């Protein structure tokens, strides 16, 4: 199979490239690029909050996943473009019916205490992740991977040992699926599938993640962990590819306030921090080599409440479309956010793999034409200066959401004479109100779970738990169901996006960008990896 060939090719490229590099020496050069490396190989970065957990079985947020990818290594890793490269597994083969995957593991992978990493460690970790005893909020991931008996194990109906994963021998892992899943191999780069050291977990219980107890198999080991302050990891001498790891120490600092973090970044205390909203133009002018904006796999949108109990005027698709047309996305991305975001006319993020943005008529119109069309549609629906439309718009408390809401309410007011009442709610209150349909128009933001258009469009399924609009369209459901098994689902996605533009259950507003400051000497950051899955072992610092 092609993936296998590719993985083998990458491995050999790796081995050839890594010969003759010396990192201990301050004048060492990077084995591939030949750049002179700095003698101080440290990387310090900022996160906004403490992660709920750094236990691979429990990890649920992206910051936590970043740590887990350094401390542990799964079957496969991703390279700078997001392609699969060998991790603990060297290759795999899938059976003809696509139901059995057999992974061949390397025999030189070791835990930080010297024990070999075996297929049994994966079996234990996967059974643990699914078990009701651990009660992981991410246990559903095992079900999402379609592993045989996954759902029944999570529900507690059968013992975790019945999960469809077996160690044939120490270096052969067999996984049985309940249905073929074309992207199964891509899913094993997620922390939930990483191995854990059974003896350590059983000895220390939930305390096994403390630095003094943890045994891990990644390129780094945990050396310091003070919640809400910092987490330090240092290179793992037992890691099978340690000689090609360049960074020695990686530190995660928890700094809640973005502006404080920026001040500390500018003072040289850290090498990566987020750019606060609105500051990108100034910073990219002042520090062109440091301020970087790359697409981020999330879409920002407003949703209409289409429930029967919701206000009648919003049940009219023309009214909804008029409101969508009147939103000048260019002003939002260029003047309000100014961080390299892209105006959105489709729900699916433009940079999603294998997705080509379909031609939505609205996208190619000028804003003047859109406004004219909006006025016409709204007048046709019976609203105008004599009978103004009034709407309640609710968003979760956040300065940036507020700025967008104010701008849009002004656009609606000026173009359509719509009276908008803005309300912000604290996050949990907001989620409850939105889930219960207690709104007219509500803010939404959706980030891709995986790099494929269905991660966005599945929200439009009538029965989706995330479809807070309660948009119901049998044709859309049919198209999305068909796309699951189709070799070329793009045509279906085009049709669904057209439905979204026509029926306007939501107003796509912009596609996110991730805007960060990176120290000039930091190299190897995977800007091209759309999921922004980075591995410290691939980063390095060059001499100034």
């Amino acid at each position, binding site marked *: 199979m092609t993936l296998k060939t590719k993985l083998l090719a990458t491995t050999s490229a790796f081995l050839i490239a890594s010969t003759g590099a010396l990192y201990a020496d301050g004048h060492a050069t990077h084995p591939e690029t030949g750049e002179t490396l700095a003698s101080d190989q440290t990387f310090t970065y900022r996160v906004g909050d403490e992660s709920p*957990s750094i236990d691979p079985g429990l990890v649920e947020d992206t910051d936590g996943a970043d740590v887990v990818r350094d401390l542990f290594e799964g079957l496969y890793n991703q390279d700078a473009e997001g392609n699969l490269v060998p991790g603990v597994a060297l290759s795999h083969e899938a059976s003809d019916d696509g139901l059995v995957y057999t992974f061949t593991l390397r025999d030189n992978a070791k835990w930080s205490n010297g024990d070999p990493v075996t297929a049994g460690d994966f079996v234990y970790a996967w059974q643990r992740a699914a078990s009701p005893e651990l009660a992981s909020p991410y246990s559903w991931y095992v079900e999402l991977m379609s592993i045989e008996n996954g759902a029944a194990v999570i529900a507690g109906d059968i013992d975790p040992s019945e999960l469809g994963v077996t160690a044939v021998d120490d270096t052969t892992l067999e996984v049985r699926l309940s249905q073929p899943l074309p992207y199964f191999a891509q899913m094993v780069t997620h922390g939930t599938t990483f191995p854990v050291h059974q003896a350590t977990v059983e000895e220390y219980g939930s305390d096994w993640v403390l630095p003094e107890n943890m045994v891990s198999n990644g390129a780094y080991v945990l050396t310091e962990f003070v*919640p809400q302050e910092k987490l330090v990891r240092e290179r793992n001498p037992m890691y099978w590819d340690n000689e090609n790891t360049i960074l020695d120490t990686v530190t995660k600092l928890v*700094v*809640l306030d973005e502006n*404080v973090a920026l*001040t500390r970044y500018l*003072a040289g205390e850290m090498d990566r921090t987020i750019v606060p909203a609105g500051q990108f133009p100034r910073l990219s002018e002042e520090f062109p080599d440091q301020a970087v904006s790359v697409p981020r796999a999330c879409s920002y949108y407003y949703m209409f409440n289409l429930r029967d109990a919701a206000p009648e005027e919003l049940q009219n698709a023309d009214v909804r479309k008029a409101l969508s047309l009147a939103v000048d996305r260019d002003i939002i991305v260029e003047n309000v956010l100014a961080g390299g975001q892209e105006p959105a006319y489709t729900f699916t993020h433009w940079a999603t793999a294998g997705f080509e943005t379909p031609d939505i008529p609205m996208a190619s119109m000028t804003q003047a034409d859109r406004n004219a069309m909006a006025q016409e549609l709204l007048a046709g629906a019976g609203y105008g200066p004599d009978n103004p439309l009034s709407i309640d718009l609710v968003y979760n408390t956040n300065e940036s959401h507020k700025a967008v809401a104010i701008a849009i309410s002004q656009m609606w007011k000026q173009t359509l004479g719509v009276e908008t009442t803005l309300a912000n709610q604290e996050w*949990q209150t907001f989620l409850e109100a939105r889930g219960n349909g207690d709104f007219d128009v509500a803010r939404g933001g959706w980030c891709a779970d995986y790099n494929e258009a269905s991660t966005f469009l599945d929200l439009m399924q009538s029965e989706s738990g995330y479809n807070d609009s309660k948009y119901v369209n049998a044709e859309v459901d049919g198209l999305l169901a068909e796309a699951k098994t189709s070799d070329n689902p793009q045509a279906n996605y085009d049709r669904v996006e057209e439905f979204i533009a026509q029926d306007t259950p939501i107003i796509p507003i912009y596609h996110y960008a991730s805007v960060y400051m990176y120290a000039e000497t930091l190299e190897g950051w995977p800007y091209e990896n759309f999921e922004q899955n980075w591995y410290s072992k691939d980063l390095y610092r060059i001499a100034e």
Partner: protein
Amino acid sequence: MLSFVFRRLAVAIPTLLILVILSFVLMYSAPGGPFNSERPLPPEVLANIEAKYGLDQPFWKQIVNYVIGVVTQFDFGPSFQYKDRSVNDVIAQGFPVTLTYGFWSFVVAVSVGVSLGVAAAIKQNTWLDYLAVGVSIGAQVLPNFVMAPILLLVFTLWLGWLPGGGWEGGQWNYLIMPVIALSTSYMASIARITRSSMLEVLNTNFIRTARAKGLPMRRVIWRHAMKPAILPVLSYLGPAFVGMITGSVIIDVFFSTGGIGQFFVNSAFNRDYSVIMGITILVGALTILFNLLVDILYAWIDPKIRY
């Protein structure tokens, strides 16, 4: 006196119990819950989690189990948000941090505040008085969430003298900015209270008598005026001390100190019920304790007060 202390301690227990019950009810009546998120968990996953944390039990049973756990084993339960930690871990890690910078802030606020207040009162209507009043009003109107970023800008970015945040086990250079930011407004209040109460005492007959006897001013102030003048300050210090050592979310947010204030506020946003309860009880107990201490100090300083 002893019976007074026992009486107060006896009242403290039902007070704390009421605090627990009220907090429990308020907490549960807030919308959402610890395991709600934008992506609702599948029901079977949620059921597992609720069973693990005992949230599948009836409400009254949760309170009873909680109180029993706290009373018999001093166990505040697992954190719902930080799944690798228990509430005891959270408090054990965050409280010493808060206690350290809170204690030093208290020392700074009291020593500087009282000195400023006394100096201003003695030299009333001189430049020293105006300066002291000016400083304390300035410190009072400059809230710590404005002060903190200014300190950072000056001492970290421009001068590069101090680290911009972190704790590192409480090394002195990590302590300076948090202490300044936290102590200033307390210091200002203490200075104002001291000044006005000192002025009042200096105008009383017994002070006039002391001065008429020819006692030196220093002796008059320290020996005779200080004790009565400090009483109003003392009643302010009890709650102020508790306020400082139980954490300031502003300090934790701006200086990444990892103190308890940040855990407290985050726990409310995350609906991390057990952490909310743990810290509420801690703050409640400390408030009761320090109010009691202030009352005892009162009796010790002012012989007119007897319990």
